[in-house]
């Protein structure tokens, strides 16, 4: 019988059950699922995402936050924002979720070889950047200076804090944290994340920036790098999120200008999408 849908598409739309090994509460509204692939094998590249299905509730796109090479399990860090993510947050060890993917264009780790790597995260935007940070640390000789800058709301909102502090102790990468608001007792930086850029040494003419966070944070960060340091938009990468449904460029829900976030992105260079940030409603 003839069908309108290609079998390959049906395959890609079928979630595979992954067992929940653990659920870790990261922050008050953020948790990480540790998932076991059914055959113990799941390959992806830093920056890719999966569609995570809470059975009977719905499916959401979630960035992968684990190392692409180090662990046999898959980590997905999720903020409780709606029905699906709240349902995912109630899962316990031994439960199952459906996974499709990995999908999307990864961070340009190969293209950034031999260059300074400037990794700038805001809020939960650190989660999609973590695989890139792991990659840079695991392949340290591939890059010149590696800088991690992280901004968030308050000291209580620092994601992966223990790990950030550990990275801060390393001499082969520079890690700085800032918060937007704090009371006395916080001995770190206070101010927007872009203010950290001036405190680190890097070569703007030979640097690649990976930026992830709320759109306004990515916009002001990219503008600061371009206006303040003459970085080219082609050297600045951001990762976008929209209302993704199919994840494979079929449904069109995640259309962003002439791009589909799920297949053309979710990682884009700023010259590809920067102009779209200024258009209301895109």
């Amino acid at each position, binding site marked *: 019988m003839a069908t309108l849908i290609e079998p390959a598409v049906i395959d890609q739309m079928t979630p595979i059950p992954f067992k929940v090994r653990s659920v870790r509460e990261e922050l008050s509204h953020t948790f990480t699922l540790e998932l076991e692939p059914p055959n113990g094998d799941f390959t992806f590249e830093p920056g890719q995402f999966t569609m995570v299905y809470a059975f009977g509730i719905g499916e959401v796109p979630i960035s992968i936050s684990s190392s692409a090479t180090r662990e046999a399990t898959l980590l997905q860090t999720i*903020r409780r*924002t709606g029905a699906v993510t709240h349902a995912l947050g109630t899962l316990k060890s031994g439960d199952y979720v459906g996974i499709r993917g990995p999908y999307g264009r990864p961070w340009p780790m190969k293209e950034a070889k031999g260059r300074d790597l400037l990794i700038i995260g*805001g*809020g*939960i*935007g650190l989660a999609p950047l973590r695989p890139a940070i792991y990659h840079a640390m695991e392949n340290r000789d591939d890059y010149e200076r590696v800088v991690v800058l992280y*901004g*968030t*709301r308050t000291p209580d*909102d620092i994601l992966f804090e223990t790990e950030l502090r550990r990275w801060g102790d390393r001499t082969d990468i520079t890690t700085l944290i*800032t918060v*937007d*608001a*704090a*009371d*006395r*007792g*916080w*001995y*770190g*930086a*206070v*101010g*927007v994340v*872009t*203010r950290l850029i*001036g*405190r680190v040494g890097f070569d703007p003419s030979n640097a690649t920036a990976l930026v992830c*966070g*709320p759109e*306004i*944070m990515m916009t*002001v960060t990219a503008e600061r790098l371009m206006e303040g340091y003459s970085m080219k938009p082609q050297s600045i990468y951001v990762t976008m*999120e929209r209302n993704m449904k199919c994840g494979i460029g079929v449904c069109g829900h995640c259309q962003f200008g002439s791009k589909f976030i799920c297949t053309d992105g979710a990682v884009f260079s700023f010259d590809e999408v920067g102009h779209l940030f200024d258009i209301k409603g895109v």
Partner: protein
Amino acid sequence: MMDIDTLMTTLGGQKFFEGLEPEQMVVLASTAEEVEYGTGVEIFDEGGHADAAYLILEGGVALELDVSHRAHHIVQTLHEGEVLGWGWLFPPHRWSFGARTLEPTRVVRFDAVQLRAAWEADCGLGYEMMKRFAEVMTSRLKATRLQLVDFYGNTH
């Protein structure tokens, strides 16, 4: 106390003073001294008399606002290479915020009365320095506005 040549070398290495003429640097250095603070030291108090300008050479300083019946709120932190304070520029010469060190901190302290007098006497120098301070003010204002936006209130 440091001699003027050492101070000029110190100031000359700072981006804020880049491009100034040697004779202008002499004038500025003659109003300055280098000061070191330990951690948690109040450099100046909110509402206090603003009698100096500072440039941070090393360390970090928190600008704090004393909110009634609450803990001190840190508005912003300043670090190496940044100027601290402009309350001394305009009457009534009061600090809008308090400044407290976050770690051992080394600064250059400029005497406000001497600095204002030097700028009045040499309007070229005064204008140049006002432009530099205005740029810092604009940049800090922009940063503060972005802080108020609350970027991370609705992150994905």
